[in-house]
């Protein structure tokens, strides 16, 4: 029961957060210089044609009215229609979501799959000067290469030696898994290197701090084998910071996807939102940002629940890292 109350409480906070996000994003996109009619009419717009366009799309109404109208529609799940294409924004986002979701999920999984074992390895080898140095260096290196540098190098390498991978050429995963993977491998790897490093560093620190605890000394004192100790006593205790950093990484992913989707022509949501900012396709931007925030907030709630599952001491307390 306690967990449900806790979740309800977290949901409440999440709604407040999203409300804040909605106000900021609405203000941001409506007060940026240059508006939709400028994009559509370009240099050849006249005050008259501008007014025609503004009226046509309801952009001449007071901002508060537009905001409330949008908020009410959004609450009903109606994101409105794109100014650019006249098509529903929701449909466009749903069409693109699989690519971004695949990108984010696979990058996260890869980052965890590589980062956690590496972190554990460098955590338990940090009792020697060499292990300590190597673990730190690997983590710091991985966290120091910007995603676009990595992406550029990959594009370069794979446009010379394709190795079966392609730059671009995305098709939905379930349509043609092979072609999909050929196109998605590079963006996923590009995006996940930072995550690997982040998770490796956190795992290492966390493992170090757990192994400093008495209960691990107690396990050693009982003559348990190192692999058993890691599996049974270290991993679970070390996992809260790992979960936390994974959520932080996820926030980064939603932004990093912008560069990667563009670089590798993955038709995802991130690049859609950025293009919509350029085109002043207000509803698309608002929907996109709100969606990203919702995903992030949801991930955080999930993380909170995972904390409670991992650590029986946590009913509602959340580790701040």
């Amino acid at each position, binding site marked *: 029961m306690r967990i449900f109350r806790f979740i309800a409480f977290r949901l409440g906070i999440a709604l407040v957060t999203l409300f804040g996000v909605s106000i900021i994003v609405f203000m941001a996109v409506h007060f*940026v*210089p*240059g*508006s939709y009619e*400028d*994009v*559509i*009419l*370009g*240099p*050849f*717009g*006249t005050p*008259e*044609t501008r007014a*025609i*366009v503004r009226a046509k799309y309801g952009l001449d109404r007071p901002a508060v009215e537009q905001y409330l109208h949008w908020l009410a529609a959004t609450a009903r799940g109606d994101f409105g229609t*794109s100014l*650019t*294409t*006249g*098509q529903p924004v929701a449909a*466009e986002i749903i*069409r693109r979501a699989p690519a971004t979701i695949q990108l984010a999920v696979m990058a996260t999984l890869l980052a965890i799959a590589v980062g956690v074992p590496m972190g554990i390895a460098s955590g338990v080898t940090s009792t020697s000067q060499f292990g300590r140095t190597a673990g730190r260096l690997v983590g710091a290196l991985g966290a120091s290469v910007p995603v676009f540098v990595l992406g*550029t190098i990959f*594009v*370069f390498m*794979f*446009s010379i030696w*394709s190795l079966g991978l*392609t*730059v*671009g*050429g*995305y098709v939905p995963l379930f349509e043609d898994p092979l072609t999909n993977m050929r196109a998605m491998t590079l963006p996923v790897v590009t995006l996940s290197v930072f995550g690997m490093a982040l998770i490796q560093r956190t795992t290492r620190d966390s493992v170090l701090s757990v192994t400093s605890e008495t209960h691990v000394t107690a396990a050693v004192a009982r003559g348990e084998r190192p692999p058993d100790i890691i599996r049974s006593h270290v991993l679970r205790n070390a996992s809260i910071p790992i979960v936390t950093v994974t959520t932080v990484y996820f926030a980064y992913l939603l932004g990093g996807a912008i560069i990667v989707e*563009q*670089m*590798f*022509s993955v*038709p995802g949501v991130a*690049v*859609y939102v950025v*293009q919509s*900012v*350029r*085109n*002043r396709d207000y509803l698309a931007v608002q929907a996109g940002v709100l969606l990203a925030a919702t995903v992030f907030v949801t991930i955080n709630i999930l993380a909170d629940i995972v904390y409670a599952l991992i650590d029986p001491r946590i009913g509602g307390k959340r580790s701040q890292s």
Partner: protein
Amino acid sequence: MHLAKRFLITFSFLTLSGMMLISGAGSSLAEGGTITWAKPDEAQSLDPHTDFNGNTWKFFFPVYDTLVTTGETLDIQPGIAESWEQTSPTTYVFRLRENAAFSNGRPVVADDVVGSLNRVLDPATGSWWAGTLGSVSEIVAEGDHEVRIELEAPHTQLLAALAHVSTAIIPMEEYNAGTFDPTKELMGSGPFMVTEHLQDQSWTYRANPHYWGEGLPVADELKILIILDESARIAALRDGRADVGTFVNPDLPVLLQGDENITVVTQETASYYNLDVHALDEESPFYDIRVRQAMNLALDREEISRVALGGMGAVDYPLPRTFSSSKACADVPSYSGTRESRLEMARALMAEAGAEGVEIEMLTTSDLASLVLIAQVIKQQLSDIDMSVNIRQLGYAEWIDAVWVRGDFDLNVTWLTGYGDPAIVLGSWNPDKTGWNAHYFVSVPELNDKIAEAQSTPDGAERDSLFAEICTMIDDGANMLALVNKNNVIAYRNDLVEVKIHPAEGYEDELRYIEEFARIAP
């Protein structure tokens, strides 16, 4: 009409000077198949009558027909109208093809043409192109296959204006019935019809089974891939996912060196990069015409072409160099003499104007990389007359807002499209008529009159001498300056497709003959 037949090929081993460029000569061609075109930009809107953006038009060209069109050297060619006649200086009669039909199978009739043109002319539509058509008094359908256009005054550029996709013939019956909405879908009588549009990803076109062109289109399917990133577009071309690619980067030949199955073609256009100067702001140093003139003299267009565009775009004039009449513009002060002599004149003008330590702001948009390069070269050139330039590079919408809504700039680097008649682009120098540059452009009544005169004068020596006068006045006013030609860069797989690329283009339709593109049989 006599046009210069020019085109540039940057690849040294390809020095064809024919009107057409056909690769893979000798190999056999495949029937049908798909032609894939990788291009950088997505459409901004879907209405051909209102959209002003050349990048967007490219999606319309395969779908829509126009009354007339242009040929390989910008000569007016039959479109939906198989022939026409100018029965008086102000009357044009068009005879429509009887076998033309929209992709839904309904034949194109005169009412479609009349309705479409009237829609363009209707102020409520908000078409930016309407003014280019001149003062039309009426458009009349004479039976199902004849259309008559009556003008109030002679308008030489009418045919060229009607060759533009902004006057696309849309199915008016369906439009009036409400079953077709040009702002949300595309339907025309062109060689292709849109079957799928995945935003920012791809457009898929099928051959229009009712297309009037015999045996055309050659391919069954046309696919346009939208690939923002230049390297990714190159990669798509390399790994065969795209057959043709269009690029911005002038260094493409260098980048594709060693790829023997990729041919790079540079296509000359009637478009050019230009510089807007704010002459109406009392705060701006350019309020003083002498400073504007000095600035104009200090430019080194040859260097802009050489350094910013890698030698790709040649020096260009207000009257685009693609038109032979442009010769008339080559002798004006800012184009003649040595740079040193021009700088001397410029410094003298500056001194005369008492302009010292002039600081100006130059706007441009990051939307087009070459604009930023040009801006940087100009910045360095203007430092030679002690003019220090601060470059502000804005996003697209902010740039439109800053330049054309608020007029918050001293200089603005941008580009103009030249179309099929020299007078169309010259019309921009009359702010009273165009309106869009009135907030920074000094209206010169004498110049306005000359332009109007040129617009109603038929092609020929008389018109050319008018053009020469106009060019001199434009150069003197130094309010909107042509810089260098804006070429198209096209690359294609010579082992996969046979293409036809024309040497000069005026309407941004770089793959004008795409319905003739054919796959090479493996």
